[in-house]
């Protein structure tokens, strides 16, 4: 494995790992705060138990999210010093603010976790809310940093020099809103479905039904609502990407030749050499419609982009198909949930219903990883779109593959450890929380 590939793989691995923990760390506190609120209002001990059980999960995820995030802030420099040397001051604004948000989050989490029996109920509750709000704020901020890489602004690039730097403009670049919006919704839908799925499994196995039913309901309301909004926000993202990164859009759609009535290709196997897609389903005009709101206007294809500036088409296309496929599926499940809720059916006694959610447990996270693959691989070969190539950014130190192997091992071990711990949390629910608590 050469050093460049190793560096990219290590970065992708670390981010792919971090994103799972950070999304859970961002959304779970919100769920926790809601159940806490219900407990304070109704004094129903089940809600207190849910809050405590979730807060332990949050602590585990937070720690893993925090250490993997710390890794990332170093890895940006360890792997991409050429990038950070120039980009640091330009896109650093969201990172500094993010630092502030994290700090507040960590303090509030400390208060929340250790505050039972120490703090006044409402102060305690507020601490939980602050954890959630600052988590979401950091998510938005860090994604604006990433969106700057897709849509660089706030500086002029003249003769290889970065001048007239304006960090605030860089933060509010053209992509920040659509990307952050889509990301936050994704975090809610993925976490909501995952949490709901686990509780559905427990209901299905007829364990501690009172506990798991209440937990399921809190999680799924958010998950389903977010899943329904997601495709709309995705459409905004795609329109935005088409404007700023036509190469990415073309790779997502595996769309090789510019033409009128541009078709949307569903599925298929892109053949980059022959510049066509085999076995795909083409819907004429739909891509034109999605990008330009009319069926005729041509959409720029890969033929408009010099080969050396084209991203890997197959990976981007497959990842996009996975994300959109899952997105549509999750939206349907969300609609079914709300429909049945509206009909006031007793859903949770129906095995098919529970099974659907059990199967849907990992879907959101798969879509999340796929979505990032679209964004990041679709930006290649650029690390800063149109300004700096990824290969110019990589560290000169040789031997990165060993560091990549090491990291793969560590992330693998950590994932196993977290799954192990969660299993034990769930295993202990009957003993810890289901005695007729007073």
């Amino acid at each position, binding site marked *: 494995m050469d050093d460049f590939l190793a560096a990219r793989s290590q970065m992708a691995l670390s981010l792919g790992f971090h994103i799972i923990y950070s999304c859970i760390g961002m959304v779970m506190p919100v769920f926790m705060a809601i159940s806490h609120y219900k407990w304070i209002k109704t004094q129903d001990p089940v809600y207190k138990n849910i809050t405590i059980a979730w807060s332990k999960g949050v602590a585990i995820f937070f720690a893993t999210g*925090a250490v993997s995030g710390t890794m990332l802030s170093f890895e940006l420099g360890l792997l991409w010093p050429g990038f950070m040397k120039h980009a640091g001051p330009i896109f650093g604004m969201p990172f500094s603010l993010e630092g502030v948000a994290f700090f507040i989050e960590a*303090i509030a989490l400390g208060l929340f976790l250790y505050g039972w029996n120490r703090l006044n109920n409402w102060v305690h509750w507020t601490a939980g809310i602050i954890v959630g709000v600052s988590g979401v704020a950091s998510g938005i901020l860090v994604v604006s940093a990433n969106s700057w890489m897709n849509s660089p602004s706030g500086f002029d690039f003249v003769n290889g020099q970065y001048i007239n730097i304006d960090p605030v403009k860089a933060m509010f670049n053209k992509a920040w809103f659509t990307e952050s919006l889509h990301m936050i919704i994704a975090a809610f839908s993925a976490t909501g479905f995952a949490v709901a799925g686990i509780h559905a499994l427990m209901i299905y196995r007829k364990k501690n039904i009172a506990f798991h039913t209440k937990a399921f309901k809190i999680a799924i309301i958010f998950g389903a609502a977010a899943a329904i909004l997601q495709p709309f926000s995705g459409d905004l993202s795609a329109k935005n990407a088409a404007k700023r990164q036509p190469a990415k859009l073309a790779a997502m759609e595996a769309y090789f030749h510019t033409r009128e009535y541009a078709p949307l290709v569903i599925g298929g196997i892109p053949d980059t050499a022959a510049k066509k897609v085999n076995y795909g389903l083409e819907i004429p005009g739909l891509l034109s419609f999605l990008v330009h709101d009319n069926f005729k206007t041509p959409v720029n294809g890969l033929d408009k982009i010099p080969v050396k500036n084209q991203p890997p088409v197959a990976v981007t296309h497959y990842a996009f198909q996975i994300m959109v496929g899952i997105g549509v599926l999750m939206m349907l499940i969300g609609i079914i949930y709300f429909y049945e809720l509206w009909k006031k059916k007793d859903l949770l006694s129906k095995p098919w219903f529970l099974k659907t959610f059990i199967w849907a447990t990992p879907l959101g996270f798969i879509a999340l990883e796929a979505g990032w693959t679209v964004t990041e691989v679709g930006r290649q070969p650029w690390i800063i779109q149109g300004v700096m190539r990824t290969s110019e950014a990589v560290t000169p130190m040789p031997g990165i593959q060993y560091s990549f192997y090491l990291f793969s091992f560590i992330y693998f071990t950590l994932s196993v450890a977290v799954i192990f711990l969660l299993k034990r949390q769930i295993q202990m629910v009957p003993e810890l929380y289901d005695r007729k608590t007073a």
Partner: protein
Amino acid sequence: MMLYIVILFLFAAITLYFLLGGADFGAGIIELFTSTDNKHRTRKIMYQAIGPIWEANHMWLIITVVVLFVGFPVIYSEMCIYLHIPLLVMLLGVIARGTAFSFRNYDAIKDEKTQAFYTHIFVYSSFVTPLFLGIIAGSALSGQIDPKATDFVHAYIFSWFNWFSVSVGFFTVALCGFLAAIYIVGETEDVDEIKRYIRKAKIMNVAAVICGSLVFLASHFEHVHLANWIFGNPVSLVAVIAATISLSVLYLIISHRRNRQWIRVLAAFEVCMILISVGFSRFPRFVIFKDGSSMSLLAEHANSNSIDDLGIGLMVGSLFILPALGYLYYAFKKKER
């Protein structure tokens, strides 16, 4: 002007990380050197003392990194290139420590075997992390980083693997242990415990003095003019003298076992003085190279817009953070209801 504010925040973050994070590492170091029969008790006190705040302590490191890469990107990227390996090891330590600590506390089933496993990871990584932090700091200042080196070993290994850096590493470990022992003395009420921790603090202090002498010895081998740095300018000299005096006062108070809050303040003061002494003598140089050239905080900074925004961000941020942090510490000083 804003540049100086940013630099002030940088040094403040480093110092606070050293003090608070250091006490936190030290907790693990002490656990490592505690006889098995006392381990249980030690762990309980540690947990009470650092549990609520360890996550916040860790943030000072992140602030340091962010200030470096936003404000001093060239320094940050050069350090990342030549000190890649020690940074990596330190990071592995941070990961292992953080996760082991929280897994140990939040594992729903607390059986002996897994607890012992987490503890193992926790204590060893508590040792490795500050060791490598010290090595990194030592290497930045030791003048062993050689951008002209052409082979791997000289460019990426000897830049940090040298007598001076490594002895600074051990010195850091000893100081962390010392800080932790002192911190915990102020935390418990039990007279026996206090005695035990005072003894531990003394041992760690002796260790620090030994390692400190090693640093001086090594500086001689590596041609680092440490004595010159410290005694060569008045501020550093005064700082070192203040550190020595505070240490003696500390011993006086300890041996009379009076006001325990003062012990903490003095210990923190002593460590600050050591940092100030070295920091001031090197300022504004942050990284020194083998050929005697250096990277200065006053020269290698980002453009003025970024520095201004960073400075404002830090100032506004601290308006939120400091009161919140104060409240956190305060809330846990109160007893459980």
